[in-house]
């Protein structure tokens, strides 16, 4: 069984990376770790009440869940598990610790810089993965899905 690290921005398009992982590691049971970078809050109160699961849950939409479920159903025989992890560190040392903790040796990352987060609290971990994971496979994923519009921005009203 292999643990595969895949960056995600919680869009359905980003799930394509999982399919590329399946293509690259045929006939192997895969444990997929979806990772997103997260900047820890800076007040004591919010750190004390920080809950990783809660933060992830807030980002996941119903459609995303549905798409994920579909992929698991589609490749039931090779996908062992899909888990979400937040990387809350700031440098490569922290990232190497993270890799050790999750026993990750392989990763699948998008070639173009297409990971975009709706919230500024999140950041892209692709460059950490590129630097620290031994076997990081770059795949040509095109995130055709539009970048999600900011929820309450007035610009979207006038931008017809």
């Amino acid at each position, binding site marked *: 069984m292999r643990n595969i690290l895949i960056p995600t921005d919680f869009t359905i398009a980003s799930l394509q990376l999982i*399919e590329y992982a399946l293509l690259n590691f045929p006939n192997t049971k895969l444990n997929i770790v979806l990772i997103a970078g997260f900047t820890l809050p800076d007040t004591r109160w919010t750190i004390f009440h920080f809950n990783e699961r809660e933060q992830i849950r807030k980002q996941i939409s119903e459609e995303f869940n549905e798409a994920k479920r579909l992929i698991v159903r589609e490749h039931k025989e090779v996908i062992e598990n899909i888990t979400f992890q937040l990387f809350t560190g700031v440098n490569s040392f922290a990232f190497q610790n993270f890799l050790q903790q999750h026993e990750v040796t392989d990763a699948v990352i998008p070639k173009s810089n297409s990971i975009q987060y709706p919230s500024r609290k999140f950041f892209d971990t692709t460059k950490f993965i590129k630097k620290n994971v031994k076997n990081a496979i770059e795949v040509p994923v095109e995130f055709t899905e539009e970048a999600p519009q900011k929820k309450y921005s007035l610009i979207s009203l006038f931008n*017809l």
Partner: protein
Amino acid sequence: MQLRTKITSIFIGLTSLFLTGIFILIYFVSKTYTESEFYLRLSQRATIAAQAYLEADELNIDIYDDIRILHLMTLPNEKEVIYRVDAERKVALTQLDKSLPERFYQIIFDTEYAELKKDNYYYTGLLFHDKEGDFIVVLSATDLYGFGKLDNLRNTLIVAFFISILFIFILGRVYATQALSPISKIIKEVNSIRAENLSFRLGTANGNDELGQLAKTFNNMLDRLQISFDLQSNFINNASHELRNPLTAILGRTEIALNKVRSKEDYLSILKNIELEASRLDFLVNGLLKLAKTDFDSKGIVIEPIRLDELILDIKKNIDTSTPENEIELDFEELPANENAITLMGSESLLKVAIGNILENACKFSDNKKVCIKVFSDTSSILLTIKDEGVGIPESELKNIYEPFFRASNARGIEGFGFGLPLAYRIIKMHSGEIRVLSQINKGTLVKIKLPNKNTTKSL
């Protein structure tokens, strides 16, 4: 009337209605407030007047009046009248002012206080009890300042109303133009589409709003139109090409035979050859007729309910006969129990060609390694995944695979015309489906097909 003008006028109508309501409310609230404030002042003045009158015997009335006029502001046109009355029997002891209605005095007797507005004059009446007897003080004045203020407010509101209507008109017009500009763009683009440039697509198809969806709908319609067009013309091309081969052979043979006098054996062999070619021709024509009957009926393509699992089993049987060494693995484990969920409306022969092409490609380009085909469904669609472990497609060429006659750079050694996948793509598009190809070079290819099932489409 243009939509733009319509939108603007509705916009203006609604806002002016709303503004009128708000402005009228503002005006009347201010008016009521000014009046009630003035009545309060009147009643205060009336009290002072009454006290001056009552205490006339105890105080020097002239001094009191002086103070009152000098230091307490007199209202414009202020006039005070005091009547002696008998409150018990509710009758006046002196002559009352007849110009005021009887009702006014009645209210004073009942509640000891009354207000009245007549022309521009405000009246308040107060009933006082004193040891010398009861009396009514009626004080009247005009509210010059209040009227001035209200007039000013009314004028301001009217001017504000017209200015805002003007602005709303300009803004509404600009906004309507801007909102409708994509529509006029779409109209222009659609108008430029002719039979010879059917491959043209609307550029406004991004965005998830209604206009983006409209453009997408147009593009999908164009896809289907183009596919039907291409299919028809390809069919004629292929058919005439196929028909010509045996005909040329027959013509060649007869030409040779007629060239000079030949022996009986020669004639026999030539006739046999001609018979062979003619029977090939017969077979072809029969096949074409059959195809025409099934595919291109009088109405067009025959649409019928198809069970996708049965279709795939059929295709597998066909491939088994043509390439017996294939290793196609069918995975029907996730098949739904509900038959409708795995049934779709479509043309069986076309879908057979499409899925057959993809499967054949998977076998061909993986040198008959394992090919996994999985069918499952969700509520609205049937999903089909075909996974091989073949040569893959170079990522730079992945976007070209739906172009007819395109062949990937690593597929040169493998025979083919580059016609299978484009055809499959078009057929699946025609069934309102989606096809996605993911590939990693030398690792394999994953083809994902999504077709709407019978629950969602009643007809194509």
